[in-house]
């Protein structure tokens, strides 16, 4: 990166060791700390700001009181506590959970499919979830499971069913597994989109409800949704992190990964399942939010290189902070769809970074 790389003398091993992995570990730690600070800021601001503004001091005091039983003198009204504890806090935490999940799933899909354009929805999760949600809206049954709406349950099931179908169908035929997987994802996605269009056409007055789901958002988020999504996202992301090594091995291609000791077929099946589970849990509570899962992994890779052991945790933190801030912006702008915000803030930022960074595909 700097002029010192033009070293004329033969570098000694010690010097190389200091420079191998030229991105110093300190940078990773610094980015991690910055991310955690951003997360904390997003949490406090996300709870404090809204149609009713709550002083950050009160916000922190209420959180301290409810979380740790600390009594710092109750100077706030009971309805303030309701707004903080029952409405805004679960909403912010849900946005963080979904953002972290989408970023981790995006990292995993990009690495597994060896495709920088892959996002968490590449295998049909989005269209599956959307169709599931639309069906839940259209059918004349209303039910709540543990405070969890039918629409979320159907979206979750639809997302998983779509990925399972894509994976099974992609194993037929003579194409390379990756090409086959991507093309099958595209074909199944198109078919599901047709089903979604049909459901929307038939939905009549419920159209707006389907549309709201498609645009994504956290205005209905509560403790129940968080309680359903968080364990799945945390468990799936943790297991993906434990298998970071297979993502690293796949950097040089499937054959090279085999030579580096990775059982590619098995690892790919496990990782696709985990990433799809995380994606399904995220879209079930939030609807379809684009951009986070595509872009956050790339931003992190630009900063710390492609090593999955570093990228995954930082992407989780970055995705959580980004989506929490985006949801706050969406709320302050009068409940506009959060996907609009992520795209409007994120796309120009990402484009400017891309212009400054050399891009290419071939080694």
């Amino acid at each position, binding site marked *: 990166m700097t002029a010192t790389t033009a070293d004329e003398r033969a570098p000694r091993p010690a010097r190389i060791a200091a420079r191998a992995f030229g991105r110093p570990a300190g940078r990773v730690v610094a980015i991690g700390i910055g991310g955690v600070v951003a997360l904390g800021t997003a949490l406090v601001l996300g709870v404090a700001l809204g149609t009713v503004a709550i002083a950050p001091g009160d916000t922190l005091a209420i959180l301290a009181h409810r979380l740790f039983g600390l009594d710092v003198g109750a100077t706030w009204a009971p309805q303030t506590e309701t707004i903080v504890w029952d409405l805004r806090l679960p909403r912010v935490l849900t946005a963080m959970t979904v953002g972290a999940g989408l970023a981790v799933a995006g990292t995993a899909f990009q690495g597994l499919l060896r495709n920088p354009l892959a996002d968490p929805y590449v295998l049909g999760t989005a269209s599956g979830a959307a169709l599931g949600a639309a069906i839940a809206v259209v059918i004349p049954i209303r039910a709540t499971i543990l405070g969890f709406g039918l629409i979320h349950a159907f979206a979750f099931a639809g997302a998983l069913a779509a990925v399972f179908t894509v994976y099974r169908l992609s194993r037929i035929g003579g194409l390379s597994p990756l090409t086959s997987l991507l093309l099958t994802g595209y074909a199944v996605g198109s078919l599901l989109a047709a089903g979604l269009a049909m459901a929307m056409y038939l939905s009549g007055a419920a159209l707006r409800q389907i549309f709201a789901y498609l645009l994504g958002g956290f205005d209905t988020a509560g403790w129940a949704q968080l309680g359903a999504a968080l364990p799945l996202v945390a468990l799936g992301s943790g297991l993906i992190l434990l298998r970071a090594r297979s993502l690293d091995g796949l950097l040089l291609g499937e054959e090279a990964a085999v030579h580096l000791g990775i059982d590619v077929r098995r690892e790919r099946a496990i990782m696709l399942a985990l990433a799809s589970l995380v994606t399904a849990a995220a879209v079930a509570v939030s609807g379809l939010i684009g951009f986070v899962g595509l872009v956050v992994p790339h931003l992190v890779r630009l900063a710390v290189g492609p090593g999955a052991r570093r990228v995954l945790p930082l992407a989780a933190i970055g995705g959580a902070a980004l989506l929490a801030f985006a949801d706050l912006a969406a709320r302050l702008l009068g409940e506009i769809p959060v996907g609009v915000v992520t795209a409007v803030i994120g796309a120009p930022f990402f484009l400017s970074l891309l212009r400054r960074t*050399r891009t290419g595909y071939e*080694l």
Partner: protein
Amino acid sequence: MIELDGVTVAYHGRPVLRDIDLTIRAGERVALIGPNGAGKSTLLRAITGLVRPATGEVRLDGTPIERLPRSMIARRLAVVPQQAALPFATRVEEVVALGRLPHEDPIRGARPADRAATAAAIERVGLGHLLGRDARELSLGERQLVLLALAVAQAAPVLLLDEPTVHLDLRHQVGAMELLVDLNDRDGTAIVAVLHDLALASLFFPRLVLIDRGRLIADGSPAEVLTDERIRDVFGVDPSIVRRAAPLVPTAIETPLA
């Protein structure tokens, strides 16, 4: 160490290797030679267990290779891929460090010993001047050396290479060959390389294995294997051309190396 016993490999019903018997012992240096499409790369893929023989068996240290987990094979066989595509910007040292994956702790990742092995491999292949560069922006020859360094970092008792010199200039061709000889002499690493250049093969490899149309035609020293009749029959060229070209090569070897 590596034993092939009556190995036949077929792609879509068309046999590519027929009834190959071959033994490679620890610390040997073997070049696989033969015309295009003879089956040399397939033979390498059979040795590494990437293709499964239709009949016959490949054994690694006495165990059929398909019974060994890939992680264990990776600690015994290092393979230099012909070329590889990287989906993301990756620094040279990060590519070389991938060679340590088979040795890394699956949870904690690279340890100091792994970093030292990566640094040593970078120095040994002479890539110090490329540190920090995105491997995707290097020339074909430089990338080939990066992949060679990755396999050196893997530090397995057997190193397998498929055409390791195709994109290299003369100096680096000879440099790569001398590195292979050095790995063989000093570390006792067995070397198995697919080579097209008969001059390089006979200069640097005491044992040549000649493959033609999927069959093992000859196995022995360069003088035994590269007879005039075989050069004419297998490669389809007048042997005098090869004989006249060969004396040029030793001059090239005297070129000082990096």
